[in-house]
C-alpha cells in the first residue's frame, strides 16, 4: 500500500473536472496517477505516489545534499587502510 519507490512522470493531462493526471514509470511498471496534490509536477520529475495519488515531488538538490553527507564521512575514512577494495558504483 505504501509504495516507497519514486516514479518518473512521463506525461500529464487534464482529466474530468479539470483534475490533472499523469503516467508515471516505476522501473518497468507504468501506471496512471492523480496529480491533484502536485499540480506543479513537470514531465521528468520524480514523484512519491501512494494508492494512485502523487503526494510529493522529490527535490534533487536535497537528495544531493543527503548523499554529500556520507561522501564526507567516507572521505574522512579514506586515509585509513581499507579492509577491502571499495565496490565503486560510480555514483559519486
Amino acid at each position, binding site marked *: *500500500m*505504501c509504495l*516507497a*519507490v*519514486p516514479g518518473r512522470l512521463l506525461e500529464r493531462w487534464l482529466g*474530468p*473536472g479539470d*483534475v490533472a493526471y499523469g503516467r508515471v514509470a516505476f522501473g518497468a511498471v507504468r*501506471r496512471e496517477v*492523480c496529480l*491533484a*496534490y*502536485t*499540480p506543479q509536477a513537470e514531465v521528468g520529475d*520524480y514523484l*512519491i505516489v*501512494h*494508492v*494512485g*495519488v502523487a*503526494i*510529493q515531488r*522529490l*527535490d*534533487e538538490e*536535497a*537528495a*544531493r*545534499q*543527503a*548523499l554529500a*553527507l*556520507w*561522501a564526507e*564521512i*567516507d572521505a574522512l*575514512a579514506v586515509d585509513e587502510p581499507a579492509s577491502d577494495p*571499495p*565496490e*565503486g*558504483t560510480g*555514483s559519486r
Partner: protein
Amino acid sequence: MRWVEEFRDPRAIRALADALAAATTRPWTIMEVCGGQTHTIVRWSLPDLLPPAIELIHGPGCPVCVTPIAAVDQARALALRGDVTLATFGDMVRVPGSAGDLLSARAEGADVRVVSSPLDALALARARRDRTLVMFAVGFETTAPATAAAIELAAREGLDNFAVLAAHVRVPPAAAMILGDPARRVQGLLAAGHVCAVVGTEEYPALCERFAAPIVVTGFEPVDLLAGLLACVRQLEAGRAELEIQYRRAVRPEGNPAARAAIARVFAVADAPWRGLGVVAGGGLRIRDALARFDAARRFDLAPLAAAAAAEDARCRASAVLRGLLRPPQCPEFAAGCTPERPLGAPMVSSEGACAAYYRYARRHESA
C-alpha cells in the same frame, strides 16, 4: 540522480555504519515507526551492521496491522449484504476477521474487488450505478489524500452509489502515546517519511520537548535508515532532543499543503482504536458531517469502531508485536502455525507487517 541506487550504495552503507559505531558510546533503544522502514531494516540485515549497543524496536506503522478486527468484520458484513460491492486494497482481503477474511466472503458469494486506489473504486461506482460501491479505506496520512480525492470527486459528480468505510489513522498521536508510555523503553524515534511528506513536521518539535526524545524524519532506503539512526544517536549522545529531517528530498516542514487541505475538507480528527495500542486520542479521521452521505458507517448505521468488540485469534500475538514487546521470530506460531499463506493475524499478511518482513527476509537467522 537515479533516486534509488544511490541510496543503496554499499560504500555509503559501510561509511554510515562505521560512523554509527564511532558515535555510539552507550546502549540506545530506537524505534522506527513505519512498517516500510521495518522492511528495509530486515531486508538489508541492517541490525547486523549496527553496533551491538543499538537496539531497534519495530513500531506500529503498518496501517493494515493496526486496523481493528471489528473494521474487518464490518467490511465483511457489508460485502455479504448482497446489494453492496466492496472494494479494498489487496493486503486487506486476507486479514482475518472474527468470522473469516474478505476472500472467504467472496467464496460465499460476496462481490469483493481488489483495487490499488480509491480512485479505481470510484471508477467501479461510475460503471455500475445500480449497485452501492463501498471502498474499505485504511491507511495513514499517506493514503488519506487519495480517499479524500475520491470522496470529493464523488460529491462533485453526484455519485450517490459511492461510500467509504473509513479506518484512516493519524501517526503523530500514536507517536505521542508511545513516547508517553510510563513503561517506555524507546529513547528516540525515526518518524515515517511519507506521512511527513503529506502532513509536514509541525507537530513534532513539541513532542521532542515534552518527552525529551529526539525524532528524526527518515526515508526508506538503507542509506536513509542509517543516516537517520546516525542523526538520532548523535542527538542522544549529546543529550539533545530535537526534530531533524533526514528525508529532505521528500519532506518539507509544511508537508504538502494541497493534500493537507483536502484531508481537512473531507475529514475531522477523531479518537480511534488502533489494534495493539487501544483507543488513541485524536488518532483517527472521521468523514465530516457535510459529506455523511459518502460515509458507509452512517449510511448503513454501523456501530462506532471504538465500541465494537471483536475476538482475536488467541494464538496471534499481534498486539505485543505492534507495541514492540515481542519480535516476530519470538512468537511460537511464527513460520509454523502462521505464514503469509495461512496468516493468524494482519502483521503476517501486510506488505508492511513486521511478521511478514521477518518471514520473507530473515528466516535464515532462525534456522541458523
